[in-house]
């Protein structure tokens, strides 16, 4: 919170809801959530499976639109952006990391990392340097020409982080980035995220269902249950809900 006050708000949600109509019933994946995340902050989104974490993250990412309320990022209301502007917002402001890495299997690491630069129409002759730099940050500079299936899970996730950061976004959104990794590899990835948060000042919102990880790496923990924000705690706060977690 200290840094938030210094640097302003990166992300603000005001009564955000994402409801799905399923036949006659309504599924409230995200229900009236209000939150504020400061620039440069490292926040963990905690909650059991199906609690609405991914849905909320997608709303912040501009991949989805809320059915109620608004998301503001750097004081821009995402609701008023059209599809094209949302795409530009994702391209310029947001980097995303997924549980299943989501590297494109048919492309080499280099090409995977280059992809956001292509989409951002980044000058061709400067791309190589950017890609090399990003891969160097995650210690994969020697695996440039490898395909994802030639890499271990941890390496793939590091490559995905390089891809998420290559366009120098101010916000990194990670949906269970350690979910498919064993604990020591997951640890490495967490350290990497933490280091980018600290060295580059990237705001990180990370989904996890492991309270211990949240406690060790996040500056603040937001807990979701049934689409609602039920707790906002500091690390190692005993009030962080535990019973609902897997």
């Amino acid at each position, binding site marked *: 919170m200290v840094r938030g006050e210094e640097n302003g708000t990166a992300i603000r949600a005001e009564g955000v809801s994402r409801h799905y109509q399923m036949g006659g019933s309504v599924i409230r994946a995200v229900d009236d959530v209000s939150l504020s995340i400061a620039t440069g902050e490292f926040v963990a989104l905690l909650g059991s499976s199906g609690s609405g974490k991914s*849905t909320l993250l997608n709303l912040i990412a501009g*991949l989805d639109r809320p059915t109620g309320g608004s998301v503001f990022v750097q004081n821009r209301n995402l609701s008023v952006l059209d599809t094209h502007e949302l*795409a530009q917002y994702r391209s310029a402001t947001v980097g995303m990391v997924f549980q299943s890495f989501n590297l494109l299997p048919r492309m080499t690491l280099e090409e995977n990392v280059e992809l*956001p630069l*292509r*989409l951002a129409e980044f000058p061709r002759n400067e791309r190589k340097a950017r890609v090399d730099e990003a891969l160097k940050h995650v210690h994969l500079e020697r695996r440039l020409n490898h395909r994802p299936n030639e890499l271990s899970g941890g390496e793939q996730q590091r490559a995905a982080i390089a891809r998420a950061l290559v366009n120098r976004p101010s916000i990194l959104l990670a949906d269970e980035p350690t979910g498919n990794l064993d604990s020591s590899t997951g640890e490495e990835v967490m350290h990497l995220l933490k280091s980018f948060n600290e060295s580059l000042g990237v705001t990180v919102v990370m989904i996890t269902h492991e309270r211990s990880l949240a406690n060790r790496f996040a500056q603040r923990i937001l807990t979701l249950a049934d689409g609602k924000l039920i707790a906002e705690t500091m690390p190692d706060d005993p009030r962080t809900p535990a019973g609902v977690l897997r």
Partner: protein
Amino acid sequence: MKIGDLTELALRNLREALLRNSLTTLGVCVGVASLVAMLSLGVGLQQFASKRLENSGLFNAVFVYSQSDMQEFRGPRRTGSAATPPLESRPLDESARRDLSRLPNVTEVYPQVRFMTEVRFADNPYPTSVAGVPDSARSDGAFDGMQGRFFSGPNANEAILQSDFAKELSNSPSSLIGKDLVLRYAERQSFSSTNGSSADVGFSVVPHEKQLRIIGIVDTEPEGGFGGFGRSRVFIPLALAEHLSATDVSDLRELVNGNGANRAYSSLTVRLKSATDVQNAENAIKNMGFATFSLLDTTKNLRLFFTVIDLLLGIFGSLALAVATLGIVNTLVMAILERRREIGVFKALGADDRDVRQLFFAEAGVMGLIGGIGGVFLGWLIGRALTLGTNIYLARQSFPPVKISAVPLWLAVGAIAFAVGVSLIAGLYPATRAARLNPVEALRYE
């Protein structure tokens, strides 16, 4: 995304599902090939037919006679319109020939020189008709498919034989080329009519012989024997024929007219650059005071006929291409299903709907382009094969070879552009569907 990136990504996507995309592209290729083969056949037949007609020499020529000759057939000459006052009958002589050759778009003016004479070959006499061939026959294709070669010059002591005549001379006609024959002709010598004998007015006739080298054998007579002198069997250069100045029909008539010293032509052929020049030239020649005869531009009707044929062939050819485009639709729709996740990732990384749409478009376009290029080549091959097959058949019936298919540049470029265009249309639905894909759903299921 920039076009370069789109193309790169499209190519790499196509390379990944290589078998399927190759088959789809092959479908386009076959579709385009059928279109190109059909149209090349249409174009080839058209070229063949028009060339045959042009070679006949009937359509870019005006045949000129003197008015007085025509009056003998038609009775009194009708007076022309006010703009063209009645003209004096003018003799068709050397000065007239010069004037005619100065008209615009005239390539050559020459008389019909044809005479009956005796040819000696291997000590045997053959009475035959000899015709002078103008130098323009060299380039207008009238002697296409001949054995041997055309005259080396307008005065060369050379002869080309009609093939039936060649068979008469020898059992193996082609062996005649390079051998000599002797032409017996009667030379006319003018003198002033002072000796009073009515039979000798104007000139006397002196027999001569001329040795000619046989240089070629031709199947059909150029101009199809037009001119009313029957078919000739020995052809010699026109200037040589004129020089030999043998007694021909016009001379006999001049004799009757008692006008022997000033030699006139019975008719002249005015050859023009193209069939479209005929109308103007004919008018100009009429104004000079001559009677003319020409065939109107029948090639116009021919072109209309072939346009209709091309259209029909094009429609049939397009059917195969239409089927092929269904293959594109199918392949791309399949690709959407398989690449759901990839599309989701693209969007998560900042891709716009438009980027996704253009990527699918690019893939459709590349398949169309490659299929189009391959199809033009394949279609050309099919046309070649058809020509080859036809010629084998024709050769068995001892006809000269023909070229029945042609792929002009416009057809090649047009077919490729058509293939790309049709492929893009085929990509419309898949591309739109891919672009609309909801990224959240695409990313959700692992």
